[in-house]
């Protein structure tokens, strides 16, 4: 018997996925040259939702911080884009990056407060925070108060002269943001901090006894996630060109849909949000005419998935075929040469 046991992080499926992924990314980068204007816009939206979903998945699925208030940072990022370009005269790209930094900064005192709440009460606490953000921005009359404001045309023009160039730029930003977020989440989870997170998720008590500082690890994830969510928020409202408190801090648009995406795709996996986003938009594009019924179906599907298949579509596929496209853990590979496989 000639059995060779190796410990490996990768797998054939992961290698194929990486190659396929690279090809898809190249095709997507070229999209402004082959896709129509409406498709480009839709794809941009898909990427931004993918980024939001990956971030929420990191927060809830890995760090155990189930937030229903990430719209706070989406809206904050959006408003920062408008404020920094209109009042400080910053170029939009700089404003987007700065919105991320400010989002991370403001999340520090927020975390200090709401981390006092545990479990489900933490969730509602995040919602209260989002409401506070909404009400505060509704008071800022320079940004249009409760009715909101539009991005001035000279600022829009400063990005690129003609409309299609602007739309291409906006698309690339969304694609880039999604790639950066998914990669960042992947690298974070492979790092020491990521291993600590997985350990905490699997057993909080045991990991505390191993000397993992749970509070600091969760705090770190919350701040990073909030900063990145603010960047995505800025990009969302760069696409929309118009902002109002109700749209910016919408719990349905920026949290409910995102949660459904992650739950349906598979929470606690990197692949889940990607699949969930595709399913969400597929449903939306086919059922959108049904309006409220579509949302009820979405809620129902999420409930059924949570009850019957808590690991979502990806969990089902992985269990069935033992696949992992983003290899996080190590696996034991046994090559049994006697069988000559």
């Amino acid at each position, binding site marked *: 018997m000639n059995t060779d046991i190796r410990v490996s992080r990768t797998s054939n499926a992961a290698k194929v996925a990486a190659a396929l992924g690279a090809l898809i990314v190249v095709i997507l980068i070229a999209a402004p040259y082959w896709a129509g204007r409406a498709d480009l816009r839709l794809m941009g939206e898909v990427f931004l939702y993918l980024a939001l979903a990956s971030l929420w998945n990191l927060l809830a699925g890995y760090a155990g911080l189930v937030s229903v208030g990430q719209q706070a940072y989406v809206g904050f990022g959006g408003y920062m884009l408008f404020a920094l370009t209109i009042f400080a005269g910053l170029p939009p790209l700089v404003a987007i990056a700065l919105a991320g930094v400010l989002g991370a900064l403001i999340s520090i005192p927020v975390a200090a*407060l709401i981390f*006092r709440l*545990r479990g489900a009460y933490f969730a*509602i*606490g995040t919602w*209260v925070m989002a409401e506070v953000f909404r009400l505060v921005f509704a*008071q800022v009359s320079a940004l249009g108060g409760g009715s909101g404001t539009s991005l001035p045309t000279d600022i829009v023009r400063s990005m690129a002269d003609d409309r299609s160039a602007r739309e291409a730029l906006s698309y690339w930003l969304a694609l880039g943001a999604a790639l950066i977020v998914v990669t960042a989440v992947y690298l974070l989870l492979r790092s020491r901090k990521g291993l600590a997170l997985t350990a905490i998720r699997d057993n909080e008590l045991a990991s505390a006894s191993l000397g993992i500082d749970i509070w600091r690890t969760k705090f770190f994830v919350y701040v990073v996630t909030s900063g990145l969510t603010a960047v995505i928020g800025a990009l969302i409202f760069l696409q929309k060109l118009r902002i109002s408190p109700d749209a910016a801090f919408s719990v349905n648009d920026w949290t409910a849909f995102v949660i459904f995406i992650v739950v349906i795709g598979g*929470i606690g996996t990197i692949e889940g949000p990607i699949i969930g986003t595709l399913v969400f938009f597929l449903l939306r594009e086919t059922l959108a005419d049904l309006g409220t*019924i579509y949302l009820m179906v979405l809620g129902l599907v999420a409930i059924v998935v*949570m009850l019957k298949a808590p690991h979502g579509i990806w969990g089902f596929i992985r269990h069935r075929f033992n696949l992992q496209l983003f290899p996080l853990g190590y696996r034991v590979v046994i090559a049994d040469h006697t069988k000559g496989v």
Partner: protein
Amino acid sequence: MDFLNAVVQGTLLGGLYALFAAGLSLIFGVMRLVNIAHGDLIVLAAYLGLTTTVVLGVHPLVALIVVVPAMAGIGYVLQRGVLNHTLGDDILPPLLVTFGLSVIIQNALLEGYSADPQKMDAGVLETASVALGPLSLGLLPLLTFAIAVAVIAGLQWTFYRTPLGRAFRATSDNQDIAQLMGLNKRHVFGLAMALALAVTAVAGILLGIRTSFDPSVGGGRLIFGFEAVIIGGLGNLWGTLVGGVILGVAQTLGATINPGWQLLAGHIAFLVILAVRPNGLFPRISG
């Protein structure tokens, strides 16, 4: 004078918030469940009340005879049919399932009643007031506060003086051992949710008489109830009333300074208390 008036009106408003909170507090106390759809269930009760008043041509308070048992029934079925399957060590399933429920209820109400604001007509009750020295107290806010006190006293009595309350407390303490005593925890949880939604029915009808409502206002009611629970301290029903009053007073005081600050002032009061007393003012159980 404005100040005193604001404090009194805020206190009475706090009664309504305590009613929003009592159901949340009850189910958290019994089964550690936080129901994100709680606000939407309050709004559902308001709509059921509206339909009852329209169809039967009765006063909104009379509609309670229909809506309270209806909501209790919905609560029992919801708990046994769905929510019992989410309970366990993991907090994600109950949170996400009730979140999904919230979206379903909201959109079902939109489908059934449209997005137009509605209001229940309670006749003279809405405008009648009692003069108390220089203050004029609306009969409806007074009645709401009195009902809140009565409901909380009733819940307190049920919890600490009846076999049902014993079953609630025993199941809350230790589910396994409670079952060894012959208690079916699924049924006990069903009864707890039924009771919580019966209270929600009262809250919904009083809300629908006081202000206009539409399918989207549930989230806000959940947040007010939640803030009252946390301010008062987890698991303490009378604390919940105090929490509701603090929230109501903060809101009316904020509104006297600037109408736009009403809600903000309430949230800020909540955050200040969270910063200073993270377990609330009168905590009974640790979260």
